[in-house]
């Protein structure tokens, strides 16, 4: 299953460098009140890491926090002392090329605050919003789970954040830009039949922020959806357009968008059913609109017509009853679309049935079984240029709750992804999109003699080719190892050696 990035109690700010900067050692690791540690990203590019810890008490209600930053190679960037409430945490961070943005959350007042700092560590502007949900209510938990903690970053032009909020489970787009000091919030409440609206950041430029919006009707097992592309002005948040991506019997879920001169090219998954949460996608959709939202062109391609050339099929489906779960679609420097997917199918087991009986209806005997990773490259006409199956051990999820037994496999896969049960981990790229990497966990041996262990795998797309490399997640000599996201081509391995009370951080370069 997906290896969660645990937050380590370590002191990033006091790196004691060895001769090799790619490796850091901390002797006599102490417990300090570290609030958070995390990755600074610029979309899917890792730019560095932050650590945020309590430094001092200013008064009864306020603490002095110290924020330390290092770059993607663990070279020290600097630090900043910030006063804030006692129940503060630093949720995530981003860099837009000019400024840093930090997303703080005050648990007591349930306030999210975006603070933008320039490269001299001066606060430039901020944007805050209060979460109205009752902290004890299930909505608070559910919607917190659905909202990604990460900021979305508009290259050189600020930061976008989405949250859900009461009343009516509205979603709110917040935008903040250190360069122009523009900062606003826009609220969108579900209307008509839709009971929930789910936003998905697509892309932005200096004028427009594009958000894919899924409107979901009530009904767990029979969920109808409706999708659109929402455009807001970066200047004041005013709505520029909100165009539907429903085209007759083609129901398009937008995944990403690319600005090309005066037009916008949207790439999405195309469904032949309006139940896009519960059914499998039919193929890809390519939609072109102008900057006023006027449709210029649409193109739909089924997976079957192109994938059959590359992957084993049976009765127009993947062999052995597998479905394909699409995790991400990324535009490459070669003007192609690179898709990462994972094979999966619904499974039951005798043990699971027995367990379900014992649990007296609490859980179902249903699991999802995940198979190989699949990487596909499409040209701009939606034709598959290549598809590669990357072998990995078949892993399965935990048993789902009893009510999940009736859910469609695709909805179960969505739930599995939200819960971090898939083997796919994350997508990274370099600044010019010439390298795109997809990371996953493989639970198999690296070679026949090796011990069975969890491995970190990296699929790299470069120069029109997919290559794979894997390393064991655990350092053989360490008592504890964890992997952190790192810049494209690397993974940061943190090892703890109990006997020596030593923590090492190694920036491991993958071979591909």
């Amino acid at each position, binding site marked *: 299953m997906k290896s969660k990035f645990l937050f380590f109690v370590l002191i990033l700010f006091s790196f004691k460098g060895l*001769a*090799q900067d790619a490796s850091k050692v901390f002797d006599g690791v102490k417990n300090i009140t570290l609030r958070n540690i995390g990755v600074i990203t610029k979309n899917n590019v890792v730019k560095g890491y932050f650590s945020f810890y309590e430094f*001092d008490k200013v008064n009864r209600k306020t603490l002095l926090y110290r924020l330390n930053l290092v770059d993607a*190679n663990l*070279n020290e960037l*600097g630090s900043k002392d910030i006063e804030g409430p006692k129940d503060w945490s630093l949720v995530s961070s981003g860099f837009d090329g000019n400024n840093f943005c930090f997303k703080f959350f005050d648990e007591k007042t349930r306030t999210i605050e975006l603070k933008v700092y320039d490269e001299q560590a001066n606060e430039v502007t901020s944007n805050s919003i209060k979460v109205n949900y009752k902290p004890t209510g299930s909505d608070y938990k559910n919607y917190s789970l659905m909202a990604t903690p990460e900021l979305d970053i508009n290259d050189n032009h600020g930061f976008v954040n989405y949250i859900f909020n009461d009343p009516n489970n509205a979603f709110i787009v917040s935008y903040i830009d250190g360069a122009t000091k523009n900062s606003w919030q826009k609220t969108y409440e579900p209307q008509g039949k839709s009971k929930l609206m789910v936003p998905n950041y697509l892309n932005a430029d200096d004028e427009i922020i594009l958000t894919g919006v899924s409107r979901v009707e009530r009904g767990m097992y029979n969920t109808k959806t409706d999708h659109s592309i929402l455009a807001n002005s970066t200047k004041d948040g005013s709505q520029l357009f909100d165009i539907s991506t429903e085209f007759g019997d083609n129901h398009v879920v937008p995944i990403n968008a690319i600005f090309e001169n005066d037009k916008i090219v949207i790439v999405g998954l195309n469904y032949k059913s309006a139940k896009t949460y519960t059914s499998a996608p039919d193929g890809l959709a390519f939609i072109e609109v102008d900057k006023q939202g006027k449709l210029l062109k649409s193109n739909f391609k089924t997976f079957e017509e192109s994938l059959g050339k590359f992957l084993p099929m049976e009765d127009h489906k993947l062999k052995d009853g597998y479905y394909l779960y699409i995790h991400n679609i990324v535009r490459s420097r070669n003007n192609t679309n690179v898709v990462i997917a994972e094979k999966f199918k619904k499974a039951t087991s005798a043990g699971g049935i027995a367990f379900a009986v014992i649990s007296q209806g609490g859980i179902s005997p249903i699991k999802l079984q995940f198979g190989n990773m699949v990487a596909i490259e499409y040209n701009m006409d939606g034709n598959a240029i290549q598809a590669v199956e990357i072998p990995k051990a078949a892993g399965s999820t935990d048993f789902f709750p009893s009510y999940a037994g009736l859910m469609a496999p695709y909805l179960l896969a969505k739930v599995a992804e939200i819960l971090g049960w898939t083997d796919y981990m994350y997508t990274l790229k370099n600044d010019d999109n010439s390298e795109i990497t997809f990371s996953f966990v493989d639970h198999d041996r690296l070679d026949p003699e090796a011990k069975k262990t969890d491995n970190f795998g990296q699929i790299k797309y*470069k120069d029109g080719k997919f290559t794979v490399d894997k390393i064991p997640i655990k350092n053989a000599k360490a008592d504890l190892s964890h992997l952190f996201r790192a810049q494209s*081509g690397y993974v940061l391995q943190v090892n703890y050696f109990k006997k020596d009370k030593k923590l090492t951080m190694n920036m491991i*370069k993958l071979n*591909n």
Partner: protein
Amino acid sequence: MSPRIVGWIKLLFLCFLCQGTWVSSFAQGNNYTYADLNSYKSHLDNTAADNTGKLDQKIQKDYKKIIADKNTAIIKQLNEKGFLFDAKAYPYLSTIFNHILEKNSLDKSQFHFFIDRSPEVNAYSYEDGTVVCNLGLVTVMENESQLAMVFCHELGHCLLKHSNNAIIKQLEKYNSPEFAAKIKAIKRQNYNVNKQLEGLLLTDFFDRRKHTRSQEWAADSLGMILFSKTGYSGKNVSRLFDLLDSADHKTNACTVSSFFQREKIDIDAGLLRPAKKMSFGSQSKGMADSLKTHPDCANRKVIMQAWFDQHPKTGADFLLSNEEQLEKVKKIAFFEEAAYAKDSDIYGFYLFRLIENDALFPSNGAIKTSIFDALVAVCTHEKKHTLYEIVSSPYAPDSDNDEYAKLLKLLNTADLKKMIEITDIYYQNNKPLIAAPKETINDYNTLNN
């Protein structure tokens, strides 16, 4: 043109005259064993005991610990090939050092001279009378008189007991009732305790830096007096500050891309382009100035020049040898810097120094062999996912001319296939000159399997 480049060009010219010497020093290896280690250990112990005995009992324990740690570190460095005791550079530089001692009637038994194999342009000294010159410093000096001035400066520190006095002063301060009272008063407070403690220590730190800078002026002054008795000319001595200053602004004699062009190895320009510099917070000028350990080179140059103008010091730039001899020593220093990087498992820097040497000595088989060896080591580690053990991570340089930053970018970005391709082409291009050991050839063959 920077002095370092001028130095390189002169060296290139000279190396054609004495290629044999280079090859022999390259091939034979050098001696890193200090013959008088036991007597040196005794000297350290005796000095520590003498100095400790003179102190207030309150600080004796801490003082003893600090000196013991320092002594352990220096003995460790001696045991781990950290210093050079070869048959050419060491005797030459020691002779200059001893000449200064003799001319100033200083007791030789109280001083020791070592050459640190570090490429950093620096010299340093300890409270026990040990003066150390880094190889990096040797490579930028133009004549004996400049080297002598640096040694005189370090001797000035020793004679004025700067290190020892600084340790004692610090220990006395930390053990004083006033300092303890300040700490106690801060700790009694409920709020801003850490911030105030940090402020107290930072003020103390800045005071020490300020004091250190004043000690540098004093060491310069005494150094000039010691120097004036040596017979070296004072005419060009102040130029050494220009040389030290230029060493801070990395300028390289050759470019990494020219190395690959010469070898006809195709490298994507992006692989050699270091990342754009990011920062978070910046030091104010006042803060940056407060952190400096040394006064500005430009100011020191003006004052030294003025002193020699007022006290003209006639003499020679070379007393004990000649320019040719110094250039030979510099060559040894260039190679030793590379060899030290290899001994320290810093293969990125090792390869970088070799590439520089290759530009100077394009037909030297030993250098070609070493480059091949370094490339195979890089590929082997990359294949095992342990590149971080031997190659530093890339950094965003201050200058576009930082060639080491470019090489690190390449080593850290090129995939294994590309690195093997580079190694293959390099091997094929230079096969007749490469005499790699069997292990390296085995590793190389394994890469291609």
